[in-house]
């Protein structure tokens, strides 16, 4: 554990493969806690964790809250769709105010990219990025990696397809960083409007931009489907949900192109019948619910590592 010495977890971009592996190893040990009858260990007793959510979220917020509680930390949730920043408070004010309450960790989600980094510069507390705009969602990528490890036994050398709205997706970015750092071959595909060619500059190696989603799915070990946002229609990224599902949705037919033992992931919440067909989402290849379980373990590991564990 000596090798994880960061104040914050702002993204995967800056992590080394070694650091990623440490988080995953620690997460593995915490998985067991959630399977006990008494789902609680005293590891983070006396630590305070603030969950600061500026964007609606059920899954991630609950997951962080449970992770804190199962480690016996005190968790406070601040959920607000209309941020107090709107009332004239600056990022700096907010960081200083929260800092004055001396929390150990602030978990932050915000619709604007960079807010966790801005907070981290102004705050003594550890900042965990729980999703910032289109930038990163590191714990999602970590839990995806854990899911893949558990079911494939490795990440190196696997072909992973990521399908959909790559442009606006923080999940896609964090996954691209993480999976390529660990040696996977990542293939991204979706409507041309949502998969800009410039993405090829995102990482030095391991990323392919496919002109057709079928090419990305072909012989894939892992197929990751991203949520498509309705609002993108209004911005002329694609015409209708109907057309999207026909041309870009993950159907049973398309999934047949992947390896026979391929697994299907989705960060949720799903638009059933749009980016993913219900029979795929509920099918034997789908690990969507397992992802949620791993998410808890990963978040416990992150909180544990950032607070310095048991000293």
């Amino acid at each position, binding site marked *: 554990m000596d090798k994880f010495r960061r104040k914050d977890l702002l993204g995967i*971009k800056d992590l080394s493969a070694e650091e990623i592996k440490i988080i995953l190893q620690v997460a593995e040990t915490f998985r067991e806690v959630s399977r006990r009858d008494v789902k609680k260990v005293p590891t983070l007793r006396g630590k305070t964790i603030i969950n600061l959510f500026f964007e609606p979220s059920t899954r991630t917020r609950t997951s962080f809250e449970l992770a804190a509680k199962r480690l016996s930390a005190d968790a406070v949730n601040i959920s607000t769709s209309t941020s107090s*920043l709107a009332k*004239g408070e*600056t*990022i*700096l*004010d907010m960081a200083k105010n929260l800092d004055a309450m001396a929390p150990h960790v602030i978990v932050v989600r*915000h*619709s*604007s*990219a*960079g*807010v966790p*980094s*801005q907070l981290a510069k102004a705050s003594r507390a550890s900042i965990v990025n729980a999703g*910032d*705009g*289109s*930038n*990163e969602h590191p714990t999602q990528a970590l839990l995806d990696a854990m899911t893949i490890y558990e079911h494939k036994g490795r990440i190196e050398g696997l072909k992973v397809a990521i399908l959909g709205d790559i*442009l606006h997706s*923080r999940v896609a*970015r964090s996954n691209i960083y993480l999976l390529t750092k660990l040696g996977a071959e990542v293939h991204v595909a979706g409507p041309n409007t949502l998969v*800009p060619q*410039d*993405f090829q*500059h*995102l990482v030095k190696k391991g990323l392919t931009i496919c002109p057709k989603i079928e090419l990305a799915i072909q012989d894939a070990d892992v197929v990751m489907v991203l949520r498509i946002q309705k609002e993108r229609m209004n911005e002329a990224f694609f015409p209708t949900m109907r057309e999207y599902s026909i041309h870009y949705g993950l159907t049973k037919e398309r999934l047949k192109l992947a390896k026979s033992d391929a697994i299907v992931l989705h960060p949720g919440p799903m638009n059933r019948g749009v980016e993913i067909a219900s029979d795929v989402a509920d099918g034997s290849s789908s690990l969507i619910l397992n992802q949620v379980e791993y998410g808890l373990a990963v978040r416990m590991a992150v909180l544990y590592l950032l607070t310095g564990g048991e000293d």
Partner: protein
Amino acid sequence: MRLLILGGHLIDPAERQNSGKNVLIEDGKIKAWLNQDEPIPEDVEIFDATGMIVAPGFIDLHVHLREPGQEHKETIATGSAAAVAGGFTSICCMPNTNPVNDNAAITRFIIEQGNRAGLANVFPIGAITKKSEGTELAEMGEMKSAGIVAVSDDGRPVPNAGIMRRAMEYAKDFDLTVVDHCEDKSLSVGGVMHEGKWSLLLGLKGIPALAEELDAFRDVLLAELTGAKVHIAHISTKGAIEAVRLAKQKGLKVTCEVAPHHFTLTDSAVNGYNTNTKMSPPLRSEEHLEAVLEAIKDGTIDAIATDHAPHHPDEKNLEFDRAPFGIIGLETAVGLAFKQLVHTGVIDLVRMVEMFSTNPARIFNLQGRGTLRPGAIADVTIIDPDLEWTYNVENTRSKSRNTPFDGWKFQGGVVATIVGGKVVYHRE
């Protein structure tokens, strides 16, 4: 009152002058150039400029002074103080105040406030359309009579090509240059930085180079149709430069300026989400910066203008998405020109003076400025090319602090600024 600038090296590109001369000022005008072996006239105050460059006063074609309406960001007085500390004897202020400078009364108010501050010459730029809403023409003739030197709708560029055509045709009647901030907002909507590798890496919405280029090409075509004088503000992309190059080949009256940050920084500076790297047009990629340097070198870019855009810290310390566009620039322009252009060999000192003074005076037709020929107004910028200094924003004369250049070290800087024969700034 007589002032003799003694022992300096006089650079006046308009007069093809580039050698040691003493400059005699009398009653706010340049009286004569004297050879340095001539005896010193009697009854003169002496300004010792030994080892320094004596240049016609620098003119900034593009500043935002925020008064009236946003005096918490800047006032005409504080902006003028920053200007003279940065070596600018004249500043041309954009009309995006509150209310917009779209009528003679506001124009007169700005000029009066400039006079009251008594530092730099303040030349207002009037709006092209009423309230800069892009629909009806503002009273350019009346504003011209009151003292505007150009027209522009600045950050709210006229989107309608038909209106822009009429504006150019009409502005011609009053010999007013039409300044355009080129941005097709249908392409830039929601964007906060240059669209490219870094916008993808940072998850921020991009502004494509095309947004600037499409408007630049439109303006060049309109300049050809109307014969108007068109000046492209803060040019930042390869394609927009190509548009200006094309216009110049065709002999059109099209000019352009570049802001120091666009010849200094690239979009990689946004990494870290410092909102002082957010401006419009945005910091571009390496490819565009190289095109900018090439165009400075070959003369396609006529002038350096700061786009000094003060914003209060409370506004800048927001999410990158919500923070306003713009940085202050009056005090760092000369230092950056030395660092990025002169010391790197892109241009020499003569061309630097041309870009800061000779050409700006010509572009806005500022009579008696941009040269130190005898009879000209005694606006003088005195520079020490060896001066080593550090920009510390805590000491800025501007009301705002929004700069990415705090703590930067420079070689070459402003020693004194003389406006109308009066020393209004002298470095301690």
